[in-house]
């Protein structure tokens, strides 16, 4: 087990480092004009812009910049925002935004698991009947229609019907409801889809037939054998769900004006704040790698078959 963890840790670290270097270098490829929003480009002349860039150290060789960034990283310095909040240290910004995003992400993940599993169970329970059709319809809608479209209609219409706020206010608890639900919509579809598929697969296995032949009632077999076995492979999907939620937060945070990192990234992109973009992208990448890593560990923890084989 220890060897396995070590091996996976090293692997994940390598991935993070590669992602980091690639993202950093890609951003250096941008034309220099990319550091300035349109208005600034019009108002300033070439010389001021160059001196500004030189001051920021953006004209140095990319490798030098990379080295500087890494060095500062170990001092807890992630650089400063360029345009969105000029000269504010990014660490300060993130310290403010991360808790918000994390709170939203976490609550929608929990909601997604609860509702997703319930929907999946409903689909299996009423297989080929109304429950299944309902679930299939839902999954189809969420997965086939571009998320922006239904998210937009939810914001416009559902908020009106239920009298819920259309944007997020920190001091108004009811303004949490819609964003959290929106953020969990695709997770719900995800869990329902896979739980149904795995349970249907498990249902036809020999050990289930044998459990029934033993004289256990169907309910018992569903609970102790089919559900339990179907849940295990689902754990593998937890990290992907995390990725899903991160991806969704980009849209939802800006739709509902939530002061989180997803919204910040969209703003940073719109105002071309290179430093900010780079840090947030890196942060997301690290989160995902760590998430996948934790997911693997979790599977190893819940599936007795994996413990013996040390190779990943």
């Amino acid at each position, binding site marked *: 087990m220890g060897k396995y963890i070590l091996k996976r840790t090293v692997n994940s670290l390598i991935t993070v480092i590669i992602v980091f270097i690639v993202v950093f270098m890609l951003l250096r490829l941008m034309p220099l004009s990319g550091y300035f929003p349109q208005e600034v480009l019009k108002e300033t002349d070439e010389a001021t812009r160059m001196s500004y860039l030189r001051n920021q150290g953006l004209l140095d060789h990319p490798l030098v910049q990379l080295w500087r960034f890494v060095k500062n990283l170990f001092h807890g310095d992630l650089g400063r925002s360029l345009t969105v909040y000029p000269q504010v240290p990014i660490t300060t910004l993130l310290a403010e935004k991360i808790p918000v995003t994390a709170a939203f992400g976490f609550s929608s993940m929990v909601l997604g698991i609860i509702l997703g599993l319930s929907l999946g169970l409903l689909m299996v329970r009423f297989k080929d009947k109304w429950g299944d059709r309902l679930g299939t319809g839902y999954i189809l809608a969420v997965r086939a229609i571009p998320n922006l479209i239904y998210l937009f209609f939810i914001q416009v219409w559902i908020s009106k019907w239920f009298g819920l706020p259309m944007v997020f206010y920190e001091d108004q608890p009811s303004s949490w409801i819609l964003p959290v639900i929106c953020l969990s919509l695709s997770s719900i579809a995800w869990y329902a889809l896979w739980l149904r598929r795995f349970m249907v697969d498990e249902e036809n*296995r*020999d*050990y289930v*037939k*044998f*459990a*029934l*032949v*033993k*004289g*256990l*009632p*169907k309910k*018992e077999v569903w609970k*102790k*054998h089919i559900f*339990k*076995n179907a849940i*295990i492979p689902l754990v593998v999907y937890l990290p992907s769900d995390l990725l899903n939620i991160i991806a969704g937060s980009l849209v939802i945070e800006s739709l509902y004006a939530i002061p989180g990192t997803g919204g910040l990234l969209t703003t940073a992109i719109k105002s071309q704040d290179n430093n900010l973009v780079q840090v947030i992208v890196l942060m997301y990448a690290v989160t995902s790698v760590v998430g996948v890593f934790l997911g693997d560990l979790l599977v190893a923890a819940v*599936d*007795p*078959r994996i413990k*013996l*084989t*040390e*190779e990943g």
Partner: protein
Amino acid sequence: MENNGHTGPLIFSAKDVEIKFNLRGRTLTAVRGASLDLYQGETLAIVGESGCGKSVFTKSFIGMLDKNGSITGGQIIYRDQELTKFSTEKEWLTVRGKKIAMVFQDPMTSLNPVRTVGEQIAEVITWHFGTAHAKAKEEAIELLRRVGIQDAEARYKQYPHQFSGGMRQRVVIATAIACRPEILICDEPTTALDVTVQAQILELIRQLQRELKMTVIYITHDLGVVANVADWVAVMYAGQIVEYGTVREIFRGAAHPYTRALLHSMPQLGVKGHDLYSIKGTPPSLYKEIRGDAFAPRNPEAMEIDFEEEPPMFKVSDTHWAKTWLLHPYAKEYREQLESRTRQQHESRKPTPPFNYDCAEKLLQVKDLTVKFKIGSKEFKAVDNVSFDIYRGETLSLVGESGSGKTTIGRAIMRIYNKVDGSIIFKGEPITGKLPRGEAKRLRLEMQMIFQDPMASLNDRAKVDYIISEGLYNYHLFDNEADRLRKVEEIMGEVGLSSEFSSRFPHEFSGGQRQRIGIARSLIMDPDFVVADEPISALDVSIRAQVINLLNKLKRERNLTYLFIAHDLSVVRFISDRIAVINKGRLVELAGCDELFSHPLHPYTKALLSAVPYPDPDVERGKKLLTYDPSIHDYSVDKPSWSEICPGHFILGNQRELDGYLREIESCS
């Protein structure tokens, strides 16, 4: 009711049971009026080909038919309860698992992989008797001990993947007997296991049956197993019981043509050099209405009445019944005619003389072959230092249990694995490692392979025509399209397939027909040497004989040399000239067929031979099971070597063991 030869009271009876399935709008009648009585403490074996309804029939005893199936006629009575009247799950649960338990074929899949074996046994006890968890655990451990699992307390907490196949089947049996059921249904309980393990499991069931006074039903297609375990035998065909009797009556005086055909097609009973009796075709489709005797279309000796009227059950003796018109008084003359004909046939059959090795030429030599595989970072030797020769025109069989490396040797010879140590010499030229293009091509033309699984070895998106001509295309072995078609037609005729099948897809054929397509594909290349990798182990008994006969016929006509890979010693005896026994990657013994069967020397060979079921109840019951314990070899100082102990008889052993074997030979002769 009188107790016709039965020892215990009648406890269970199924009368005229009819079971129908609804499959995509079509109705399949899986069981067409089958009847069966069970008496306490006895063992009944239900025999039949796959698809004859034997599994479905027994599943209906515990209400475990699939959702789309239902009992549409007849009665099932257990003690004083009419099971066919049960409608709720609750009613069934008073019987299922508690009074009537079942064991499935494949122990690898019968246990839930993510729960400990102990829990899976204990849950049955807890559920049926409401026993407290701690008490149930104790009982489960006791059960594990009882089925012969050592260190039961520690094993209780382990997961199925930590058990071997045989051990898992023991756990499955422990689960099944947890409630002390009166009836235990074993659905092919040993088919997925190696012969030596099979013998142990059968012994275990027998012992438990005695202790618990259970009635046991075996469902099996292996007549050797039947001879070993059964008191009574019911033969099932196309959803009906066609013959019923004591095991001796069935094996000595079978009355129904189907039972006789099944018995005759056993390779153990064949005479070397002659065709085995084989049953043509496949069982009828149960979607269609069956008229008359269902077996008639496959029975060359059928009477006209068989095609018109369904025969009733005729009584042969107090304990023996058969459903065939042959027993009707009108058929007396015809029956006698048939009997004298078969007697003549039997008398005229003399075994062919054994293969003459004096002037034989070595076709293939394998020297110190070692094949290593990497599993993760660990390396293990699938084949370890194996040497043998194959002479032109002989059949050498390579016999071993699963995982012994026998298939790997075959594939190494076929150059499917490129990295092997040691050397393989074919017609005097080494064929390992990289070969020049022309050489490799020549080898492909001279060496071919027949595969085990006829379902997996044919590309199901290609037509038979392409599959068979694949080799011709590769080497342009035809002048023009007409020539190619002629060749395909010719080979299809040779393997007994109509040439109009060539435009069809593999799906449309039965297992035996598919295997014949596979054989045609290899033989169209006109090879000298064929590696047959378990070509019949995936086939039904009745179809095995067809394929064995075909292989033998082709060998004679085309002067082929076979390396026949098998796990079943009974088949091997019938077709091979010499046999090599392999265990854990090493050859342990190699000798002429008769020599090996009459004077096995290596303890592993002896154990293997003692475990092979023989289709004769008296032989089976009298035999003594030997077990092989590898720890008897002390190879710490004296390393074993592969040596020729007497002409043509090779054995693996160190000096001390070889001396012992020599003494054994001397004492025999």
